[in-house]
């Protein structure tokens, strides 16, 4: 039935429709543009928010692609103990996750935990031997010391860790209760760190079991001794039997002790150590009351810890402080308290509690656990280092006033968290690596905090320091991408997957882990909720939307190329990019 003409048919000297004689590439429409799109990876806010300095976005991307091994490799570059941090880190990454502005933050800790647990299932790697001749001593096997040892071992150094306690792990082993961090799991994670060729000497308190002079044989020393001198509660008759430091109590329980506390336990303090003491006391069969001199709002403990303590039956008296111990038959029988009110803000920005005269009252108590904070023990340090009452003086990388000695963890001026300790250990390892390589005659620039950290506030990444990033970056800039620069039109709401939890009844039966995390499948589903903020994850929307077909896939699958001869600079690719991984730049600049 066809009567019409093919394209090539010419009548009156023209084809039937306005059609070109060749393809369109002859028309270099790219010459029209005055702005051009570029791929420009930026920093996801979670990466900046992580005190450890983990490339969270990158491992989420690998998981989205189903590459679990690659995700683990990325995670283990920066964090030596994800099974630990996936459980005990207070996950500030989630507080800044852009997805919180869309529906709910990604449950990053649950994904990290699942990955960490998978890593523990892998067969142990054969021990590595150092590739460099320098040796480093690390004092303290807490998170700061282990992180420093881990990174130094990865950099090729031989590392010996000196630990005063009979078991390695520091606060992780002795401070944090079993129901939050199972110790067999900690031991396996430490064993993996050790397999890098690290020697850990336990029952080896430097200055007692090991002379300070023994450290002269090392080329560098890292101090990560933490804070474990419990502060005095500051009440009358504090030496009454039945009153003891909370941290010491936790250590005893963590080493297998089951002390008699009596029926009624009073815990003084509002931090995580106080919550740990109260919940541990509950598990030992005591009624437990927490006294805190401010209100619930000022409590430094994480919400999750307080909520779980309340759910388990811990009682709270806010705006109350102990004044005097009362005793009967030479043992504690009660605590006289005084009501407080909140006054002016103090140096910490919190309102200072002020006693209300005449408001005294007494609560019965068989044991009082003091958990108002811990301080460092500088006397035990065998070196003359500058410090104030609370912290060693260091530079941003932990180097003390003695260049041979770096420090990290709770002993330096930073928040007392496991994540911050791991981050400080990494920074110190970078500083030590830089110094030792320079002293060995290599040309090494001093580590540049601004260049090595994620964004403006994040921690240093070992990958940037070593320059061995396995992820292909597209014109990366070290700026965090805010939610406003994402294009949420391409996202779909998905509720966060909540952690599974042991019932309160089961929790109180013993020290079984309370938070059970996510199943592996749900953890992978949670990883797929990640927006991959600021980083191209090959979603291909740019390619789909380009009206000039000027975007093509790189043959090696690492990203896209823009054909600037034909890109007209319309900016659709940049506008459609869901994750702010593109930018428009002035043509010719």
């Amino acid at each position, binding site marked *: *039935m*066809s*009567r*019409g*003409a*093919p*394209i090539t048919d010419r*009548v*009156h*000297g*023209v*084809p*039937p*429709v*306005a*059609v*070109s*004689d*060749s*393809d*369109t590439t002859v*028309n270099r429409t790219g010459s029209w543009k005055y702005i051009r799109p570029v791929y420009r990876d930026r920093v996801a806010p979670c990466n900046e928010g992580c005190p450890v300095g983990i490339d969270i976005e990158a491992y989420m991307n690998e998981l989205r692609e189903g590459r679990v091994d690659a995700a683990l490799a990325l995670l283990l570059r920066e964090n030596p103990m994800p099974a630990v941090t996936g459980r005990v880190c207070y996950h500030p990454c989630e507080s800044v996750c852009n997805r919180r502005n869309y529906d709910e933050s990604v449950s990053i800790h649950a994904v990290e935990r699942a990955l960490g647990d998978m890593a523990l299932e892998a067969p142990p790697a054969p021990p590595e031997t150092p590739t460099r001749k320098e040796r480093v001593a690390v004092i303290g096997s807490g998170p700061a010391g282990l992180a420093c040892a881990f990174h130094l071992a990865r950099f090729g150094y031989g590392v010996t860790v000196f630990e005063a306690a009979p078991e390695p792990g520091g606060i992780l082993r002795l401070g944090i209760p079993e129901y939050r961090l199972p110790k067999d799991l900690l031991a396996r994670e430490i064993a993996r760190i050790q397999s890098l060729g690290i020697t850990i000497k336990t029952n080896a308190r430097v200055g007692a079991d090991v002379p300070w002079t023994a450290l002269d044989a090392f080329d560098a020393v890292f101090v990560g001794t933490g804070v474990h001198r419990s502060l005095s509660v500051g009440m009358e008759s504090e030496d009454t039997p039945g009153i003891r430091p909370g941290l010491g109590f936790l250590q005893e329980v963590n080493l297998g002790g089951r002390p008699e506390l009596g029926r009624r336990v009073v815990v003084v303090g509002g931090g995580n150590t106080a919550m740990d003491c109260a919940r541990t006391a509950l598990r030992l069969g005591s009624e437990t009351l927490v006294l805190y001199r401010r209100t619930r709002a000022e409590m430094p403990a994480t919400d999750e810890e307080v909520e779980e303590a309340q759910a388990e039956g811990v009682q709270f008296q806010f705006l109350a402080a102990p004044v005097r111990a009362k005793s009967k038959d030479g043992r504690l029988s009660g605590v006289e308290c005084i009501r407080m009110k909140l006054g002016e803000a103090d140096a910490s920005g919190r309102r200072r509690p002020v006693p209300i005269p005449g408001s005294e009252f007494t609560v019965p108590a068989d044991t009082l656990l003091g958990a108002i904070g811990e301080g460092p023990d500088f006397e035990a340090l065998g070196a003359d280092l500058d410090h104030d009452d609370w912290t060693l003086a260091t530079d941003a990388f932990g180097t003390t006033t003695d260049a041979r000695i770096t420090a990290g963890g709770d002993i330096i001026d930073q928040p007392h968290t496991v994540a911050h300790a791991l981050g400080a250990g990494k920074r110190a390892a970078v500083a030590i690596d830089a110094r030792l390589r320079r002293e060995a005659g290599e040309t090494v620039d001093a580590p540049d905090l601004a260049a090595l950290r994620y964004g403006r506030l994040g921690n240093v990444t070992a990958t940037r320091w070593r320059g061995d990033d396995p992820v292909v970056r597209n014109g990366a800039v070290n700026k965090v991408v805010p939610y406003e620069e994402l294009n949420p039109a391409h996202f779909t709401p998905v509720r966060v997957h909540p952690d599974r939890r042991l019932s309160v009844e089961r929790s109180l039966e013993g020290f079984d882990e309370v938070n059970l995390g996510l199943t592996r499948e749900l953890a992978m589903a949670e990883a797929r909720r990640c927006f991959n903020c600021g980083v191209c994850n090959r979603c291909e929307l740019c390619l789909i939307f380009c009206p000039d077909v000027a975007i093509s896939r790189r043959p090696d699958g690492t990203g896209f190329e823009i054909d600037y001869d034909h890109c007209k600079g319309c900016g659709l690719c940049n506008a459609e990019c869901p994750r702010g991984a593109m930018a428009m730049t002035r043509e010719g600049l």
Partner: protein
Amino acid sequence: MKKVIVGNHAVAKGAQLARVEVISAYPITPQTQIVEELSELCADGKLAAKFIKVESEHSAMAACIGASAVGARAFTATSAQGLALMHELLHWAAGGRHPVVMADVNRAMAPGWSIWTDQNDSLSQRDTGWIQLYCETNQEVLDTTIQAFKLAETVDLPVMVILDAFFLSHTSEPVDIPEQDLVDGFLPRREARLKLDVDDPRAFGALARPDVYMEMRLRQQEAMEEARRVMVEVDAEWKQLTGRGYGPIECYRTEDAKLLLVTSGTMTSTARFVVNELRDRDEKVGLVKVKMFRPFPTDDLRRVLAGVPRVAVLDRNISPGHGGIFAEEIRSALYDLPPAERPPLHGYVLGLGGRDVTPEVIRDVVVRSLESPAASEREDLWVGVNS
């Protein structure tokens, strides 16, 4: 098989039998049951077509053009303001020689808002290069929809199948629905000649300079001339298969007529009734129905109307500032007849915005045409309006 169906479903049935491959539509007023029915056929797997829901009629036509450009049989339907919104793309479809078929439910243009019939929406698209076929019955709607694809794909021009709002679109009539095999034999799969070919990449719709533009328009005009003949052939073939043919125009009891009424759309049926009535009284009044408006059936009309004592053209439309559009076009067609054969022609504007054109109204037209020969031949009379 005969079924009692509304005009909208007659269109949908026709498109289904034509095995359309791509349907694109904006599913809100002024859209009709046409695409509602087609979307259900697609969803139920009864029609193997891609249904592309878009955000405007402009996009609907763009999608049809795109589909047609890769060789698919593409269809859409619209009405009134929706058709107006398509205006730019109507030029693209025709100028790009894309054989898209579209049903237009003839509705009056707003303001004021109207969901009732007149022809101003489709006639406003007169110069876009689309073939326009106006239907009288639901049977004709179905038959014309199927014929339209064959016509469009033979001459590489888009076709608009036009039916009156409500009087056809929402009115049930018995319709003989042909068997699929019959339609398949009549209308094989589209063999596109002008189409995108990834092995021979070219730019379509590119710049045409003054040294080639006119020639392209000339080819388009020649395709329209071709369409006049092809329309007759396609219609004749369909008549052979089904017994039903319509032609570009239809003459009804025109022998020895002293007055010929010229109509289009559903008022034709009313006019048939009045003509029968008058013929029963030996009043020599006949009827000419215009089905094809573009290409305009100039020669057919000249042949039929030459020498007739009087002609009355009934326009359900108005070109403000000029007059009824069919009347003006027919006057123009008859202009160079020898003066003795050129009939006096009266134009009547009626039925706008869905106002009923009843037998009384048509009788009034007849009376005025026969009894008031002094009435102006240049100025159309508005019939059925309040004074």
